[in-house]
């Protein structure tokens, strides 16, 4: 395997003296609906890229298919806009081959929790270092308004016209149920400071960082986050030095709860459905096994490999 200059455990900041500005990361102009929450996520991510001075050529955004998955086109990094529900295996392949690359994954809720559910679960378990975001608008946007696993019960859609039949799947609760998951967080795109802080924490996490971003879709699910947007007290911030702390939000968001992300049992309780929407790092444990580190192959020169191959042939010699 190619040995990158940068240690995969550290984050791959630009190793040169370029001073990278926002413009160094801007791609095609975003074509989401006006007011679409994806715009806010793009802004936060661009801020992160600048803040961390990530080398555009060593950063890869991988996505599936959906409104949200258009994401990579709007950045000037490397991007892989793959197929619906399958961003995670592609991202895993990239990291196994090139540990020194910084990988972000952008998925939609249908992309990640419906068609991609199996890969999602297993990516959480592999715990390969990358930031995986699900932009959760509780609907299938690109295909125009069909129920997704996270659509609120009763919300009518084109495929469940009398209202969505089942209670919404909670991606946080599920992620917390996966053995070896190491970072599970929730944030909301309409709280930019929290979004940024969460993504930054995710980026610095040594492992697979899963971030559910609550995302408004004015087109099809304008209602679902409305109350939360209008009434800050509906949100409760989980705060902890080992999680995210955003002082500037404290005035607006008065409901705060100190939660130690190492406490899985508590995290699961906090994730249970209630009248409150909790934002923050639910769980984090940097000591969990990382498949990419375990599998890190010691690079061999061609000469070494030739020698080994000769030995193999000897073993099969007649």
């Amino acid at each position, binding site marked *: *395997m*190619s040995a*990158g200059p940068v240690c995969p455990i550290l984050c791959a900041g630009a190793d040169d003296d370029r001073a990278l500005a926002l413009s160094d990361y801007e*791609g*095609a102009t975003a074509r989401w609906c006006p007011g679409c929450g994806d715009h806010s996520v793009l802004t936060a991510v661009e801020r992160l890229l600048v803040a961390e001075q990530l080398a*555009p*050529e*060593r950063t*890869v*955004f*991988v996505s599936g*298919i959906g409104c949200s998955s258009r994401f*990579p*086109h709007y*950045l*000037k*990094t*490397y*991007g*892989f*806009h*793959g*197929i619906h529900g*399958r961003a*995670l*295996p*592609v*991202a*895993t*392949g*990239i*990291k*196994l*081959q*090139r540990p020194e*690359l910084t990988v972000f994954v952008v998925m939609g809720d249908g992309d990640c929790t419906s068609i991609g559910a*199996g*890969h999602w*679960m*297993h990516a959480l378990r592999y715990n390969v270092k990358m930031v995986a975001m699900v932009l959760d608008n509780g609907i299938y946007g690109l295909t125009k308004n069909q129920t997704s696993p996270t659509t609120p019960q009763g919300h009518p859609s084109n495929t469940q016209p009398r209202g969505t039949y089942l209670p919404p799947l909670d991606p946080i609760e599920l992620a917390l149920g996966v053995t070896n998951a190491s970072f599970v967080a929730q944030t909301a795109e309409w709280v930019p400071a929290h979004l940024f802080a969460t993504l930054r924490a995710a980026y610095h996490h040594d492992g697979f960082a899963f971030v559910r971003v609550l995302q408004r879709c004015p087109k099809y699910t304008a209602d679902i986050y409305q109350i939360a947007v209008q009434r800050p007290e509906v949100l409760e911030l989980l705060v902890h030095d080992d999680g995210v702390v955003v002082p500037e939000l404290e005035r607006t968001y008065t409901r705060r709860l100190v939660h130690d992300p190492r406490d899985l049992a508590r995290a699961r309780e906090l994730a249970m459905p209630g009248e409150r929407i909790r934002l923050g790092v639910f769980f984090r444990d940097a000591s969990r096994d990382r498949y990419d580190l375990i*599998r890190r*192959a*010691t*690079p*061999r020169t*061609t*000469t*070494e*490999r*030739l020698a*080994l*191959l*000769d030995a*193999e*042939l000897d073993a*099969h*010699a*007649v």
Partner: protein
Amino acid sequence: MPTETLAYPATDPAREDRAPRAITTRREHTLEIVSDAGEGAQKCGQIFGAVCARMGNGVWTVEIIPAEIQPPPRIPDGASGYRIRFGTGPVTNWGDETQLVLAFNEQVLLARHRLGALAHDAVILLDDCWASHPDEDVQRAWRDALDELGTRDYRVILVPMDEQSRAIVDNPRKGKNMFALGVLSSVYARDLDVVREQIAQTFRTKSEQVYATNVALLELGYRWADEHLDVRIDVPATAPSGPMVVMNGNEALGLGALAAGFELCAMYPITPATSVSHFLGEAFERFGGVLHQAEDEIAAAGVAIGASYAGGAALTVTSGPGLALKTEFIGLAVMTETPLVIVDVQRGGPSTGLPTKVEQSDLLAALYGQPGDAPKVVIAPATIEDCFHVMVTARRIAETFRCVVFVLSDANLATGVQPFARPTLEERWMRSTLDLDPVPDGAKPFDWDPRTGLSRRLIPGQANGMHTLTGLEHDDRSRVAYGGGIHQHSSAMRSRKLAVLQSMLLPPPVYGDDAGDLLVVGWGSTKGAIEEAVDRLRAEGHRVSSTHLSFLSPLQPGLRAMFARYRRVCTVELNYSDEPNDPYITDESRRYGQLAWMLRAHTLVDVDCWTRVAGEPLRPGAIAAAMRLRLATLLPTGDA
């Protein structure tokens, strides 16, 4: 004449009383060893096969696999064993019926008999311990079996394998196989030193004690046979020209992958492909690569594509049902022009089908499985040696043409073992193509040469090369775009590459005269059997030739011209086609063999086919018989 059953003399006669053993000499010969699973007939066969190879014989061996993982003892379904065909010259296929079989019990023997695996006059060496077994049912089963076998001209020779082995081991089930090896070594006059060496090599990880016991059993069996058997068969060897290696097709694919410099193999277990990954899993630990067992075949394809996109040499290995699941990702690789090598070790289908049985029926799925137009390269190894070299070719094509390359092997190659010339390795095969140099600003990710469709890919890490690959249609900058002729042009660029590759290929060689009455066309693992059939037909004076295609997409050039030189063209394939004389089957309704169908469209020649899905390799004799019928329908004429 009825099957003759010899009891061996109860007591050892002094050797001089016995008639000297008549020695039959054969240029090629097929034997098999069958037992219950776990009794070691396979190990015995493997050693015997290796010994023959070391002594300079051509060899082709095939495993006999039971239907269950651990079947109960003494049932036909449980037959586990090894089939060895060896000869004076190279042996290219598993041959026809077995001429000699050594069976540990009469039930597994029945299985082979009922499958028609045994020659009508086969010699049978059978453990006789069951005749006098305490259990009444066993005795009855034994008698019934011998009666059933009595309906043929077999020559059954009873061998006290069990009884004799007890002299050395308490549980003959764990020793018989080495006794059997001794018996066979005597029958075929194998050099005992070579046999001992091979035993040592086989059990190198085991204790000295194990070796000693096995050798003792070997020698006991050898001596016993020397003293009691009048069967002696000689298959002279010819010293091989150069150094040889011996392995099965899946090992060859694995070694080939290492030689070709593959760094990552993503897979999900599936018979009969899994053993390739077993090999790589172990080897990569030393070679510095990764075998990734993914959560399913979809993910396996995705991981391989991701690794390749990131600049690595990646492959995925699978079989029918797994291939089906990769369908969508393969389309993405074609659309994004990401190099990807897919090894499909074909088994019987459709659906879960016949997991352990050979078939060649994934050709059309490999070619046309994707919705939309997804041109790709398809190549098929025909021999175990090919399995090694095809991996080097596959990687080179995948990277040069930025395309998907299918390698279609099958269960016959996967488990068949054959010696072949030791490959001379080349350093350039392995070299990584990873190039992280910056590219000029504005470099295009699909900078297609409008004539060839070829373009250089940009890999993450290359400064100024930033772009977003997409499975949506796109222009040369990889921007999503549909209209204005872009889709037409991009499609042409993806397709053109096949035409360019074809222009670099040679017509396939003809085996036999380059004109005649009948041309037999094949692909993949059937080559040896087809050519042996052609030899036999030609020996009978028939004007028959054959050609074997290693490229299925693009097809090699010159086929139309070649076919025109024969009065009739017929493919021989291991897949399904309607029989012309079956009810409702007409010229218009007949469904052809998969290669035949392609060749008809490609050449417009009325290509016929003879195909079988018996769940086993084709036999040269059966091919020859089928071709004789085709030849018979040709009106006699001076020339073609």
